[in-house]
């Protein structure tokens, strides 16, 4: 709790497995070192501490990956695909043929989390998560390396997401199905979820088809303090104080938390009524202090007449999906699989 000199560890360690507790606590403490009170960020130390992994075109556990650098923007996208059945094709990156001419293969554009500031597409936790997504959904995943704050503020991350969407839509080798198009879903956790929303909104305004949004405890906020923020402050790895820091680092200087970036259905938001906004799967962790904002987001979508499914995981903390050692993880994977592979698109 704010102001207390005693840290209350008891609650968080009762609800997550030991190795998960270690992983997320390790991040929490490292991140505490990186955020400076003056709003600057120790990027050098952050890059040193971040565990990164290379891509691997030889399939491991049925998934292979390769990186593509967009020459125009110098941004990296890491593509994950299910391994070809024919072993003779292992190691080759197929850039000429579509994914399939008969079946539909969903392409999930994934925006990693990190509160707009941390992590990359090649961070180990996200590389592993994307691989699991591919295995689970038999989808292709494109993980986007967007520019991060505080060096790059709003709207850079959204612009990069938008660029990635257009790039993905225009790759012939990501097409599938009988009508040869790219079947795109947007997904993201934390800040990545926030990015997915804003890219989808822009796509809807520009008539670019996105088939669905998957928002995994997305990062939203508002100027007022909600009940969940007050109740859960500091209890499960996250504090209001750190959330505030990250918004100050991302939003334009001088903006408050009712800026439409963090509060899309707030006083400064734009209406989504009448737009062809994709269906959404919003996953809320019951022990996440941001949940009231996430639930308000769900309500906002519903009020605008859009299709949204809420998956509320009561005993889940943030980051529950990093390690496959809990029921929430498997529940999530099943929901995502149903969401992208449903028969009625």
């Amino acid at each position, binding site marked *: 709790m704010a102001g207390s000199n005693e840290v209350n560890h008891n609650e968080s360690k009762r609800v997550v497995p030991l190795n998960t507790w270690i992983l997320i606590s390790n991040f929490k403490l490292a991140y505490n070192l990186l955020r400076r009170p003056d709003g600057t960020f120790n990027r050098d130390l952050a890059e040193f501490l971040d565990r*990164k992994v290379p891509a691997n075109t030889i399939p491991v556990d049925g998934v292979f990956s390769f990186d593509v650098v967009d020459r125009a923007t110098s941004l990296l996208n890491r593509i994950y695909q299910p391994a070809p059945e024919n072993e003779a094709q292992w190691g080759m990156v197929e850039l000429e043929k579509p994914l399939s001419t008969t079946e539909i293969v969903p392409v999930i554009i994934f925006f990693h989390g990190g509160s707009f500031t941390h992590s990359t597409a090649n961070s180990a936790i996200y590389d592993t998560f994307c691989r699991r997504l591919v295995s689970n959904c038999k989808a292709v995943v494109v993980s986007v390396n967007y520019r991060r704050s505080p060096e790059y503020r709003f709207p850079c991350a959204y612009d990069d997401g938008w660029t990635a969407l257009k790039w993905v839509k225009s790759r012939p080798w990501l097409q599938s199905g009988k009508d040869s198009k790219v079947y795109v879903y947007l997904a993201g956790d934390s800040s990545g979820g926030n990015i997915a929303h804003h890219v989808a909104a822009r796509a809807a305004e520009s008539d670019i088809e996105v088939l669905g949004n998957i928002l995994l405890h997305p990062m939203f906020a508002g100027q007022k303090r909600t009940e969940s923020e007050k109740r859960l402050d500091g209890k499960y790895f996250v504090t209001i104080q750190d959330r505030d820091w990250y918004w100050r680092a991302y939003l334009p200087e001088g903006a408050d938390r009712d800026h439409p970036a963090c509060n899309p259905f707030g006083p400064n938001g734009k209406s989504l009524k009448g737009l062809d906004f994709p269906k959404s799967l919003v996953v809320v962790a019951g022990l996440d202090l941001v949940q009231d904002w996430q639930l308000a987001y769900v309500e906002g979508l519903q009020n605008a007449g859009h299709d949204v499914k809420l998956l509320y995981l009561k005993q889940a903390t943030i980051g529950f999906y990093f390690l496959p050692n809990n029921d929430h993880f498997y529940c999530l994977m099943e929901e995502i699989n149903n969401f992208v592979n449903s028969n009625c698109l």
Partner: protein
Amino acid sequence: MAPPRYDSAISAASCSGSSSSSSSSCAAGKLTPPQEIDGLLADAGYKVRSSDLRQVAQRLERLETVMVNAPSEISQLATDAVHYNPSDIASWVDSLLSELSQPPLPLPSDLSDFSDLNYVDSLVGPAINPTVVNNEWTDLHAPQQQQTVPQLLTVVTAMEEDSGIRLVHMLMTCAEAVQRGDFPLAGSLIDEMQGLLTRVNTGCGIGKVAKHFIEALRRRVFTPQGLCSAAGGGAGSTNEYEFLYHHFYEACPYLKFAHFTANQAILEAFDGHDCVHVIDFNLMHGLQWPALIQALALRPGGPPLLRLTGIGPPSSDGRDSLREIGLRLNELARSVNVQFAFRGVAASRLEDVKPWMLQVSPKEAVAVNSIMQLHRLLGAPPSRNSPIEVVLAWIRSLNPKIVTVVEQEANHNQPEFLNRFTESLYYYSTMFDSLEACPLQPEKAVAEVYIQKEICNILCCEGAARLERHEPLAKWRTRLGEAGFRPLHLGSNAFKQASMLLTLFSAAGYCVEENEGCLTLGWHSRPLIAASAWEALPLPPLPDGSDPIRIINQNVL
């Protein structure tokens, strides 16, 4: 079954039975069972023993309590403290605790605070025998899988252009034909590709890469092997090689990174020593040493007496180029008041060098510096007297304070031609891509020739003539561990300074990464060169109590 992607996510059950790599000569009958690492944390990039989980959690709790109670010290931790090997959470947390002047030992608090949450049991490791916890991470490096995964690390940039894709496919088909011995087909593909090349921009991107690889294939198919002499070239090539090397040095940051990182580590290792001796396995123009000499000159407490022994090939034109470089370095040292002595050792091959030639004195702190030299020793089949074993043994016998090793981060030493071809295609594509950002001419063009020679050696030469036998960091870790060395971790200070070095190069794609105590430099997400530092594990005394090092130094190997 797919092999693990990380060194150590290998359970005790699947170990090949031999004891772990570097407990080696000290083991003397005591067998520490390899401790099992939590597989899920390993997938997240962290190495924590399953049996240590509770202790590590307690330390994290302690660290957080300390940090909350001393918020002003946090910024000091972030800026001043040097961090090492973040994959090892336990030691990272301990180092922070000791920075905050807190004892690293866990408090005798109630371990039952952590409830036993049994989720999916099969994903949590089986119960571990409560053996003595040994904090030496080197013991954890269980023997590598014998079959190395041919990791194809790709950064695909220009490959999407249509003609580019076609060229790559043809290159692979041609390489396959070469592997099968179908030279007529290979030859006709080469002709076809050379035709395609005329319609593609060979000044950059995939066109440039293809041009070089087509050339390598052409040489392999059409030129008799005899042209690959054991010296890796013809007469008069030493000067030519030095010329190419110098331009490669200027055109891109790989060699500068190597020198810079090695020098940092050497400087730290020499701290507190008054007599120091650096042995450079490939002196070239001595480009690495002015910076070290100057850093030693500025050392608080004054510089040590510095001896430098530079190994290099004999000059082909009668000049004593080693000596000339030594004289220049001597002048520089004198100008900054560093007492300096130089010795040149001329040898065409590293395995021809004998330790007595280096005249190492037991009073000196010795640094052995190998920048892209060790891989050249891998030509012979592994045995006790293979060149690499012999050289690593005599390095050890010098009892060095530090051994700095920089190697290409690539798997170019595979016996199968096609595997070498594919790996090198991706590796050098990435390297050429990074080179494109270089604005300097003729440095850039000459650097390309330097790279071309490497490619040709990898693909056209066999046996003793093939010197470019690059192996990845994971393999070097095992090799050095088995030869009696343990890692000296490169920390966040070295990382930060390497990153600063890169800002001098305009290209934004260069990337330094930390890899379990080593640093890599790469282009975008693909590491291309890896720097590591090592120290020799102390040898056990001989049965009669005598010092084995003295004995080895006296032996003429």
